[in-house]
């Protein structure tokens, strides 16, 4: 504000200029927001345009129903099912670890822990989330697998069990914080109503808070699933790089992400079918995570509106 000589008058010129600045700022900021949309457009464009070329060489039916995936062999086959089975097994183990542990921890933090404990624990969980995934991969391959081999002597060096377990711990902060957010969004009046009826904390949590927060908790699990499906380095390092159509966690198998890494590391010529296959595989991965993310988005929106 620039007072004129009279002390209260502001020149019309100043006000006009100020409004122009405001309008310019609005459109510059809008452009920045629009760039984030362009990123999505770019991803879809790249994946679809390369995948279209890929599907001119390989039939869609072979792609979605074939049980053999050997793009780098002399006689290449392009059935995505082995990569999907690897992805499903590893993320299944990860969720099997992460969901019960994350839910327990979330209930503990939201219903039991004193504020002090919660405020110490949350940063520690964030540190766990900040560890680079390549480090988790090393951990799975060189520490967890040898430990598991003590229990299961037949376990091969590359297997899906170790990366699955490690990934479960890796996404624990994520499952915990999202489900805790959902539980804390449940108004205290509902909790107090339960206490007044004589419910213990445990029963309040299980019979009142969790049902009330269920859409947010489901969203947490679905978003964690999306994270597990897209996780790359842990599996690329510790689960092996051979596509293997199996649901046995004791075997090694490549996931969609591990395959993309494998091709990127090798010297596959750009434009070959094997090269384009990583975009087709990437498209499948993108569609899977997109579905999970959208479901998660709307579920979270719903619980936010509910309270």
């Amino acid at each position, binding site marked *: 504000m620039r007072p004129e000589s009279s002390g209260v008058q502001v020149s019309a010129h100043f006000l006009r200029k100020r409004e122009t600045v405001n309008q310019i700022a609005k459109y510059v900021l809008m452009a920045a927001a629009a760039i*984030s949309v362009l990123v999505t457009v770019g991803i879809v464009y790249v994946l679809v345009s390369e995948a279209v070329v890929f599907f001119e060489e390989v039939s869609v039916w072979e792609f979605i129903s074939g049980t053999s995936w050997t793009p780098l062999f002399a006689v290449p086959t392009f059935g995505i099912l082995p990569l999907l089975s690897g992805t499903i097994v590893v993320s299944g183990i990860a969720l099997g670890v992460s969901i019960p542990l994350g839910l327990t921890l979330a209930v503990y933090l939201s219903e039991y822990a004193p504020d002090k404990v919660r405020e110490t624990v949350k940063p520690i969980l964030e540190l766990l989330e900040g560890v680079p995934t*390549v480090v988790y991969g090393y951990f799975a391959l060189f520490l967890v697998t040898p430990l598991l081999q003590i229990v299961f002597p037949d376990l091969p060096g590359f297997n899906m069990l170790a990366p699955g377990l490690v990934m479960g711990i890796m996404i624990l902060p994520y499952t915990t914080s999202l489900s805790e957010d959902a539980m804390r969004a449940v108004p205290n009046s509902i909790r107090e109503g339960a206490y007044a009826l004589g419910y213990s904390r445990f029963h309040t949590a299980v019979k009142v808070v969790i049902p009330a927060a269920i859409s947010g908790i489901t969203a947490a699990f679905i978003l964690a699933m999306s994270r597990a499906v897209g996780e790359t380095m842990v599996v690329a390092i510790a689960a092996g790089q051979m596509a293997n159509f199996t649901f046995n966690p004791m075997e090694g198998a490549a996931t969609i*992400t591990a395959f993309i890494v494998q091709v990127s590391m090798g010297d596959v010529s750009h434009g070959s079918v094997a090269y384009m296959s990583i975009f087709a595989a990437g498209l499948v991965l993108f569609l899977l995570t997109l579905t999970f993310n959208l479901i998660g988005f709307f579920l979270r929106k719903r619980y936010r509106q509910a309270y």
Partner: protein
Amino acid sequence: MNTMSTNIQSGIDYASISRKNRSWDIIFASLGIVVLFIAISTLLALFLDLAIRGAPQWTNPDFYTSFPSRKPLEAGILSAWVGTIMVMLVTAIVAVPLGVAAGLYMEEYADKNWFTDVIEINVSNLAGVPSIVYGLLALGLFVQTFGMGETVLVAGLVLALMILPIVIVSTRESIRAIPIELREAAYGLGANQWQTMAMYMLPAAKPGIITGAIVGLSRAIGETAPIITIGALSYIAFLPPSPIGGDFPFISFEWLNSGFTVMPIQMFGWVSRPQADFQITAAAAGAVLIVMTLAMNGLAIYIRYRARKS
């Protein structure tokens, strides 16, 4: 008194129910602590494993000043840490202004219309897109279509796009956390939308925004997959040209178009080598990397803690 007599009449032993409930409470609270313990001990085991195994390497000063080598115990991380700093520079310069601007728009200017809804769904989806898909975007667009090659610039850009949602979300959250009175006071004094935002909201939201930016960068520093996809190599025995120095005007942008490697790629390269000694080198690189990311996360937590206190 009245209720007591009802209790006795109905024959329900409330005391034992209450005792049982209490024991459930104790069981559950201990379960929570056990899970917490699992999480923390994983973090510790991971860190100690790297530190102990990598000790012969990371305690050796040559490790930080030598290039990678075919001989595992002579290999160093010079090109990796220099590359990491350069890539992070690009990432920060691109992601922070862009993310803050987009976040400001969504909190301050966006009207309730379809465009805003699209941006909102879009950002929330981008946050969940696997990092390797960003790598495919960079490979298809920057490397193939624009012919930019495997350079520091491309790596910085792809990581910037990847952490953009983190910066946007943290900007929005820290603006939303500002008490409405501040905004109203600014309007009351006659400030318009832009002045309110630039002079009052942004400074108040600064700690939150900085925290978000650091968390985003710490995510980017440890990210491997998108950089592998654009074709970065782990064996780089040179440094990108220095940005400062040389002839007038003493600033050069050649480093942007230079080949590079970064810490996580370097570590991944060593992890995949068959010789057992490379595991030591990989562990040492991992220990350095984990210290870098934990330090950044710690800094972010500290800034947030201080901001909350004041």
